[in-house]
């Protein structure tokens, strides 16, 4: 099967996955305690006002009518309107998405840039101080709750030493590139100042995880007979390690990478809260607290779609890394 056909097939499967997500989330609203009207109407609102709000939002229609109405709107690209603000759910979600994707991608890049070298060094210098340092770091990284790490980073590096802003997102990466295109590099510097601490906070666990994965993978590969054969052929050690052993090690790493990137898009809630980062995670939580179902559903669809897209990309990447992988 060609790559194109493979992606098309997975995309079609993805549509059904998203439909499943939509259906489950839609049904969840009817078993979750807390009527959205409670949050929209004031405490002392009259029953008439409550009924009027329910009618305006279509909440007084039968369940199946609401479901099919929603599906029809989704097909037209309409995610409905926020119960609370009355604004388009899709506009709110897509306004937030870049911040979350940016944070997830930077956290992943930082994690990859740090963890793979650390894992390789740790494996190739087994039982040496560098190995102990790397394994200690990875253990600490996995064990440290990221909300604690985030707060500590802010208290020390922002409040105490004034090196970074405490929170918020001053401008997006695209804006920063716009400044750069005008010959002003300061936009990138400002962007980096704001994203550094959230990215470290979000990426630390991930860094530690990949470090451990790379280390164990490398140790496994370096002990295999093909590595001994390449060494016996007289290949330089760097080629043995990086061309042969590391490349094979990267296959499970890429799998985890894809899954983690997907989860970072949907799961950066705590980091976003600590840094008042205007992303999708905080929008989901605020929407759940307010029972703002159009926003909740929209966010989950976007997050679900992100998972599907990232996983298709990861599968496609397998073949690049390991030609023995075939699409079926």
């Amino acid at each position, binding site marked *: 099967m060609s790559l194109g056909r493979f992606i098309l097939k997975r995309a079609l499967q993805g549509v059904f996955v998203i439909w499943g997500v939509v259906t489950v989330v839609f049904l969840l609203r009817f078993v979750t*305690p*807390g*009527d959205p009207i*409670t*949050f*929209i*109407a*004031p*405490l*002392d609102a*009259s029953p008439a*006002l*409550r009924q*009027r709000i329910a009618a305006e939002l279509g909440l007084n229609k039968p369940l199946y009518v609401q479901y099919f109405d929603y599906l029809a709107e989704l097909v037209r690209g309409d995610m409905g309107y926020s119960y*609370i*603000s*009355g*604004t*388009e759910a899709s*506009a*709110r979600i897509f*306004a*937030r998405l870049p911040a979350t994707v940016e944070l997830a991608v930077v956290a992943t890049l930082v994690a990859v*840039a740090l963890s*793979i*070298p650390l894992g*390789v060094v740790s494996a190739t210098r087994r039982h040496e101080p560098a190995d102990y340092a790397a394994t200690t770091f990875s253990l600490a990284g996995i064990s440290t709750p990221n909300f604690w790490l985030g*707060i500590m980073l802010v208290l020390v*590096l*922002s*409040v105490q030493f004034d*090196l*970074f*802003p*405490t*929170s*918020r997102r*001053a*401008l997006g990466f695209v804006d920063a590139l716009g400044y750069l295109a005008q010959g*002003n590099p*300061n*936009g990138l*510097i*400002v962007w*980096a*100042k704001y994203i*550094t601490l959230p990215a470290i906070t979000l990426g630390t666990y991930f860094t530690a995880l990949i470090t451990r994965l790379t280390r164990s993978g490398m140790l496994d590969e370096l002990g295999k007979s093909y590595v001994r054969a390449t060494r016996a052929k007289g290949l330089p050690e*760097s080629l043995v390690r*990086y*061309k042969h052993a590391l*490349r094979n090690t990267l296959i499970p790493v890429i799998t985890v990478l894809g899954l983690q990137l997907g989860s970072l898009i949907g799961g950066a809630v705590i980091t976003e*809260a*600590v*840094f*008042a980062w*205007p992303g999708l995670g905080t*929008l989901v939580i*605020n929407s759940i*607290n*307010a029972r703002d179902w159009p926003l909740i559903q929209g966010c989950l669809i976007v997050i679900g779609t992100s998972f599907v897209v990232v996983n298709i990309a990861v599968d496609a990447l397998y073949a690049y890394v390991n030609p023995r992988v075939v699409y079926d």
Partner: protein
Amino acid sequence: MADDRQSRISRRRYLSLVGSAAAAASVAGCAGGDEIQTPSGDGNGGGNGSGNGGEFAVTITQGQLDSGLDPHDHRETTTDIVLMQAYEGTLDRDAEGKVVPSLAEEYEQVDDTTLRLFVRDGVKFHSGDELTPEDVAFSINRIVNNDVGGLASPQKDQLAGVTEATVVDGERAVDVVSDGVNPVLVSLLASYGDVMQKSWVEGRQKNQINSEVNGTGPFKLERYTEDEEVVYTKFEEYWRDPAAVDRVTLNAAAESSTRVNQLVSGETDIVVNVPPQEVGRINNQGNARVEAVPSTRIIYNAMRYDVEPFSSREFRRAMNYAIDLETIVKEVLSDFADATSQPTLEGFVGYNPDTDIYPYDPDEAERLVEESGHAGASIELHTPVGRYLKDLEIAQAVVGYINELPNVDATVNQRDFGTLAGELTTGSIEDKPHFYLIGWGNETFDASQTLIPLLTSEGVLTSWSNEEFDDLVAQSNAETDENAREQLLRQANQVAHDEAPWIFLNRQYSVYGASGRIEWTPRRDESIKAYSISPK
């Protein structure tokens, strides 16, 4: 093979990449970034500073931002605070809550059901157009009438009793008509009823009204980034003196520790809802201070009169005697609260200064429980968590004191606010928990707006029914003489105190953090008006 070459990663290349990343982070942490216009205007990475060219810029950070910019289409204080920088009502309040003129320079009671507002001359909207009586009448009608201005306003209940507003022929005035005697109308108009420009509203779609601003207030909208920030600049043609603040930014951070970090780092000037445990950190920082003021919100434990053991007056009074309210205020709330003795707060019309706070008297409580015939009763206090300042801790303290009585057993039931509120707002007393903690904010500074919804037999949120109390409130509602009305409300408060439908708890304080570079005094009505801020 070409692929192999591309995927080859040399050790030197690795080190080079890692070194670049570290260097970038290091530079990012240390360098400044001039000449960048960021959404927060803080492209230099911290500090709201004085902005460009000596501009006095101020940032206000709330727990959350607005739910849209239509001043008639919301009921949250957070949205109010965003919009009160730009929109004004016909009447207003000073910092102490006293009614003062605003867009109406005077008012008079024409008859029992009609209040005439004389509209101020020379007031301009941000659009540059003059304010007219038609705009005032349209704004009031847009709130109370579903057919006006394309909106079924959730604020209709805030102007309770008002049926319509009409422009008075030949005068720069508007008559506000009620469906009967409406003794609180002036009070309501001082808190609610922002004025919008009729033609501006009619020429816009709902989403435009929710993302643009055209008021008469001291600040006009510069930039609105939904969910991120609202930026206003000074309106030079404001009908009063222009504001001392040139630019005001409103943003939000849900976490209180994040807000406090922003304040002590100089990134914002005012933060809301500072928890007591953060007070020391702010005061010790040197560049900021804590400001606390009694709010208009009362916290109480309602006891349903129609179920045992709370159907007994003696039992309800016993619960009030059982708790050491002074200690709760001091230890749980760090003195950021006042103990209460009645449903109405001090300073409100109808407050009874002669009622005393229930003293802590466990012996009397035990005796009253025995007298009530409910010795051995088990009760469960339902409380929201995180909705009000230290709500769970207050509930736990209350239950702890009740458990010290040998003849009552009490437990706390932590509830999701939405679910609890859903039970309280069905309109049926049977749906409510028997015993619950809740808070009530009353921005009108008038007792009736607490007593009617919360304690009269027909109140939307009532947990109690008492004929004498109902009569007193009904009489006060029909009384046009202010003094006589106040006496009736005082009597009603005395009855409530004696009958104890609630455990009277505390008046919540609004606790703010303020930067040392601004002069600002917090208000009792939870408003934050940038117009009242000046440089120190």
